[in-house]
Each structure stands twice: as C-alpha cells, then as structure tokens.
C-alpha cells in the first residue's frame, strides 16, 4: 500500500513512468532529479504518511522510504 502511494508521489514529481519505479530504485542515481526535487518527494511522503524524516541523507532506495512510511 505504502509502496504504491510512494510510486505515485515519485512519478508525479519526476519524468519517470510509475511502473519503472521499483523498491530497488536508487533515489539519487535513478530518478534524474536534483536534491531539491528529492526533498520535495520526501516532503510529499512526510505529509502523506504523517511522519518526520530527520535524516534524509541516509535514504538510499525507494524501499527506505517505504520502511519509514510503514514504521
């Protein structure tokens, strides 16, 4: 459930097709966005799931975001 929502958030903020976003997708290497775009994605996830991501620099993959959303 969280994964699908995060897929939508990333697809909405990038040029990447929703179905090309997997749990292994690397947030820095595979999305083709700069750190401010990545920050917007992270903020969308925070707002959607009501969480506070204190160390965004530790995030590597989509699965890392899913884990935080489901925690």
């Amino acid at each position, binding site marked *: 459930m969280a994964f699908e929502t995060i897929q939508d958030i990333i697809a909405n903020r990038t040029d990447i097709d929703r179905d090309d976003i997997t749990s292994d997708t690397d947030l820095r290497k595979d999305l083709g966005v700069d*750190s*401010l775009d*990545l*920050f917007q994605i992270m*903020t969308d996830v925070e707002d959607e799931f009501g969480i506070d*991501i204190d160390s*965004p*620099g530790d995030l590597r993959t989509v699965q890392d975001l899913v884990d935080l959303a489901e925690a």
Partner: protein
Amino acid sequence: MIRSVITATGAGLPERIVKNEELFAMLGVDDAWIYKRSGIHERRIAVDENTSGLAIRAAEDTLKKAGKTAEEIDMILTSTCTPDYQTPNLANQVQKGIGAKNAVCLSISAACSGFIFAMSVADKYIKTGTVKNVLLVSAEILSKATDWSDKGTCILFGDGAAAVLLERRDTDKGGILSEELGSRGDKAEVLTHGYFPAASAFNDTPPMEAKDNYIFMDGLEVFSFATKRLTASIKAVAEKEGIALDDIKYIVPHQANSRIIDFVAKKLEQPIEKFYLNLERFGNTSSASIPIALNEMNEKGLLSAGDRIMLSGFGGGLAWGTMLIEWV
C-alpha cells in the same frame, strides 16, 4: 527598559558582477538552469580585496550614516566563516581599518546564521551595560571557499559585507524584541568548509588536498533542515512575542535559495511578497546576506518606525537563529 536598537546600516560590496551567462563557458550550464535551481541570476565577486576589505568598507559606510566617529565605538563584533586569517580575527582588522582604538573586538563563527548569533551576543553586551554600542559587521568571500568546477555548489554563492550599528536605548519601543536560536551539532558533517587536520612533524597525516577546503553540502539534508527550522523558528518567535505573522511587515531570511523560501512561505501561509529577497542579484553570501538585505531595504526607504521585522538565519553547524526587531 534597556533595549538594543539598530541606528544605522551600511554595506561593502564588490564591484565585479558575475552573471550566470559568464559561468556558461566554465560550467556548461545556462542562466535558465541556474535560475531554476536557485533563483539566482548574478552575484558579486571580490577580485582585488579580501574579506577584511569588504568588512572595513561596510563599517565605514555605517559610521558615516550614523554620524559617529570610530573612536566612539565600544565594541566591534564580526561574523564570518571566510576570514582573511584564523588570527587575527576579522574584528581586529576592522578596528585597525577604521581606527576604532577604544573598541573591544570579537569575531563569531556561526556560518550562515552568524549575523543573528552576533546580534544576540551584541544584545547581551548592551543590556548588561558592558558597552553602549556595538558595530556589528558580517563579511564573507564565499568565492574563495568554492570549488569552481562543481556546478552543483559554485553557482549558489557570492561575496559581500554589511554592518549595523546597535546602540543602547532606554525605551519601550523598538530594537531587538525576541529571539530563538539553536544548534544541531549531530548534523555537523552535512555542511562543511575549511578542514584543518592535525598534521605536524610528529604524525603521518598526509598533506590535505585543496578540495578538502571547499564547501561541501549534502543538499537533501540541508534543504530539509533549512525549511523545517526556518518555519518552526519563525512561528516560535511570533508565539513568544504574542503576535500573529500577519502583524509582521517583512520576513528577511538568509538568502540561500529561492526554493527554500518559496516552500517556507507556503508552510507559513504567508505571501511571498512579505519575504524580502535579493538573492537574484547577490546569491548566497552566508552570514552577510541578512544585513545586506536589511541595508538595501533601509536605503530604499522600505522601513518605517514601528515596523516589525523577522530576521532568520540557518546553515552550517547546523545552526539557526530567528530574531524579531522593531524598526525605529
């Protein structure tokens, strides 16, 4: 009631303007690319003077506007993360440059929050009766701390200096009203500049590479910190002072990146016009950015007695500081 009141402002800016178009040959990115990421079109770059030169010019400009002599200054307080020397500190160089022989001199290092931290320290020196006035100068040459081959960071920074004269007044109106400052040392490594390893004749530390001295920034961490802290700190100061954000005439944030400011404006539900921005013409000048903006506002006649202005800095440390002042 004893208050610290800003009675004059001034600036010392490099004359050389480097527009984004000039960076194209060096970096291969155009004005649209840079502006979209930063809100910056151009910046000032110091080519024939160091940080102290800009600081001295800002100090002289402020004294002239205040109608004060250098001998009348009790304290010179500087903030910089790009000084000429580790020692002497920048404040001593300003003292020599303007001939303020009666001043005690101190420099503060709090990166982009430096002006707010220095204002906070100056306020305490004044309120305790230690000094009657403080000439506070924030000066930076970020261009000497920048890796000019890294288009991710070098597009963001500029050089400049600005100063304010703070004076002790027995009044119930105006001056510094409230503040909120903080630090996150656990995030120290996400924004660094100027590392000096322990290296002597007695250990095997290899020589440092030049790149180790450049600004390093984990953009995601810094943007996340900046937006959250700026939003929370401005709210906290307004609540502490018991006023609504609608009662504030201007918010003058550290001029880091227009996207950070846009984000904060939305979070605070305040119009972007309330935020005074000039980073389009100056870039990020670290601790100098807030006083440069304040001086520009003052020179344009935008500030009137009774105006409540929120000043908010954030950056390396990590650290942040917000201060509510009332113009006189």
